[in-house]
């Protein structure tokens, strides 16, 4: 053992000796080589380290990729599930909306056709309007006709009264037996209408020349006056009989017969005069009651032995004397 140890230590020294001895002989070459070997060793080492690191990095990358892949798959599936849900929801909503649109469409069509643009209502309105127009046209035509007739009537009445007035003014042109008048020429087949009017007009002396007087002087026309519907003309002419000039003519006094069954005047007179029963007064005298009471009092005083009740009766009697309620015939006191 000790020799081994000694040899081992000698090895070390030997190496050192060897080195120091060789140094002086081949140190340039060794220097050269040292540099080269050093660099080569460096390179190899670095390359190896790089490989190690690369291997490590690729290992890391692979593991990272695995993790990321799994994660991405997870999130994508989650998103997909969400998308599916959303798409389903949208599909459902579209469906509902479409159905709602169908309902609304039908409703709107119905509503508009029934209430807003109701074709039948419009049609019936227009028909009603044409009927109303016809009616109005007819009524207006009738009204116009009526008014025209009224106006014509009034015109005619005016003309007639003017003619009557003229006839009255020309009363002196009436033809006589001896001499035919202006309007009654012998060459005419029949007398002129003026002639006929003149014959009907009755002359009256002009009493007053105011308008009422003139109206009264129109003269009385007979039943041959042309009859027009009740207008002022006919009233005018008819009233000439009554309101003429200053003195009103009273109707004649004629003894008319009595109508119906009347009693003789003598009877009635008798009835009125000899009828004493018909009064509003009592048949008895004014003081009748007091007299009766006095009589009774006298009767009871003559019998002083009367019952006590009679005193109260007297009392009652005296009370009742104030009220005149008991009529004369109610003598049933006893």
């Amino acid at each position: 053992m000790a020799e081994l140890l000694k040899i081992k230590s000698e090895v070390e020294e030997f190496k050192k000796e060897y080195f120091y001895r060789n140094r002086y002989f081949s140190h340039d070459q060794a220097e050269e080589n040292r540099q080269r070997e050093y660099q080569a060793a460096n390179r190899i080492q670095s390359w190896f380290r790089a490989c190690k690191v690369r291997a490590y990095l690729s290992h890391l990358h692979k593991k990272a990729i695995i993790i990321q892949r799994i994660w991405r798959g997870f999130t994508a599936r989650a998103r997909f599930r969400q998308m599916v849900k959303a798409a389903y929801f949208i599909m459902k909503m579209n469906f509902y909306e479409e159905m709602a649109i169908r309902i609304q469409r039908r409703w709107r069509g119905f509503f508009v056709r029934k209430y807003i643009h109701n074709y039948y209502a419009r049609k019936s309105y227009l028909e009603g309007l044409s009927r109303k127009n016809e009616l109005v046209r007819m009524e207006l035509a009738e009204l116009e006709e009526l008014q025209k007739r009224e106006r014509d009537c009034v015109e005619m009445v005016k003309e007639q009264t003017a003619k009557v007035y003229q006839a009255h003014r020309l009363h002196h042109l009436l033809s006589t037996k001896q001499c035919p008048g202006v309007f009654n020429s012998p060459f005419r087949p029949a007398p002129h209408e003026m002639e006929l009017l003149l014959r009907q007009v009755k002359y009256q002396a002009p009493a007053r020349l105011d308008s009422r007087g003139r109206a009264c002087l129109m003269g009385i026309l007979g039943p041959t006056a042309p009859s027009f519907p009740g207008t002022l003309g006919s009233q005018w002419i008819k009233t000439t009989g009554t309101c003429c000039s200053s003195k009103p003519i009273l109707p004649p006094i004629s003894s008319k017969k009595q109508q119906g069954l009347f009693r003789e005047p003598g009877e009635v007179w008798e009835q009125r005069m000899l009828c004493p029963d018909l009064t509003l007064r009592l048949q008895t005298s004014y003081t009748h009651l007091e007299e009766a009471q006095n009589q009774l009092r006298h009767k009871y005083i003559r019998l002083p032995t009367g019952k006590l009740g009679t005193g109260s009766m007297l009392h009652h009697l005296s009370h009742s004397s104030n009220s005149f309620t008991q009529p004369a015939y109610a003598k049933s006191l006893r």
Partner: protein
Amino acid sequence: MSQRQIIQVFEQYQKSRFQFVQTVADLALRPQNIEILQNAGVMSLLRPLMLDVVPSIQQTAALALGRLADHSDDLAEAVVKEDILPQLVQSLASQNRFYKKAAAFVLRSVAKHSPELSQAVVACGGVDALVLCLEEFDPGVKEAAAWALGYIARHNASLSQSVVDAGAVPLLVLCLLEPEMALKRIAASTLSDISKHTPELAQTVVDVGAIAHLAQMILNPDAKLKRQVFSALSQISKHSVSLAEMVIEADIFPAAVSCLKDPDDYVRKNVTTLMREVVKHTPELSQVIVNCGGMAAVIDYLGECRGNLRLPGIMMLGYVAAHSENLAMAVILSKGVPQLALCLSEEHEHHIKAATAWTIGQIGHHTPEHAKAVATSDLLTKLLELYMDASSSEDLQAKSKKALKSILQKCTYLPGLEPLLYDVPSNILKYVVCQFSKVLPNDSKARRLFVTSGGLKKVQEIDAEPGSSLQEHINAINSCFPEEIVRYYSPGYSEVLLQRLENYQPA
């Protein structure tokens, strides 16, 4: 000289003054004497006579002055210049009724000529004095005062306002209730003149309750009264919807329609004017009048009258038809369109024709049904003639063009459109061709008719700029027909055929 003789001198002077004034008043009745009187200096002579001691001379002088001022503008101005008005106004308050009547007559004849003269009357306190006269008992005085106020208020809104501010309106309504017919007429006419200017004035008249009283007088037999009443109601209702509604609420309408058969022309015209003023505001108001048969009555009225009297009736139909297509159909059903065609052909005045063209446009522009009704009465060609006529006024041309355009845009009645292909300016032509291009693709019978009547030929002859809407429509029409037919009808086809013939070599 004795006392008697001295007094006789005065009496003679008075007699001669009276005679002078009387004669001047009588002479002033005739227009030919007026100039001579004016040159003789009658104004300056009458002026001191108006201050005369004797009342009858004063009155006759005032009457003469009134008659003179009535006839001419210059004399009225002379009255104003000579400061006669303040005297008149002062004495209006104090004198008897004959003088008041004469003085009111003078104020009226001065005020009627121009707004400036009316302003002069107002400025010297004439309006207040006249309103005091309205409170008198005598109907003649009230009538003269109301007439004068009416002439003052007629000119413009500010003068009306001064009349209203003096408190005339309630008194005028009271005058309406008086039994005298002349007074009623004048009161109605004055209310009409006051309310015609602005809505506020009309509102003032309505606030006093005039509408109810006017409505009661509608069926009065007197024609002149009815004229004024209807004129007043139409002036009130023209301003706004609420006023028109108030007039309708007075229940005039079925009764007023019967006044359309009144023998007096102006009563009928004023009723129609009232209907027009009411109808132009809203569809509901038009509906009221249509429902009571007013439309038929107005159309008959149009048939019976001539000239300017037709204008309110025509405009009423236009306003009714403008509101909605229901109402336009109602106009058509009441036989309005033939009547309007008659009006268009019979009338010569351009403003009436323009109104008729406008009305026809309002009727026809709603739907194809309405346009067809218009086209069947041959009105499209008439409107075209009016538009093309060089002697038509600008207004007439503009209105007929607008009416034609609006009707054409809805017209699908092809026989009515065909005549419009010939001799038509291009701006109308494009609408016509557009309508054809809409109808022809869908209707085979119409296509056949279009070809046989020569319409296709005419369409080919139209040259339009490529790319314009006209060309597009023409192309649309051409595409409805087979190629050969289109080529057959294209212009110059015969030359093309002849060319081909020349180049042909028989085999």
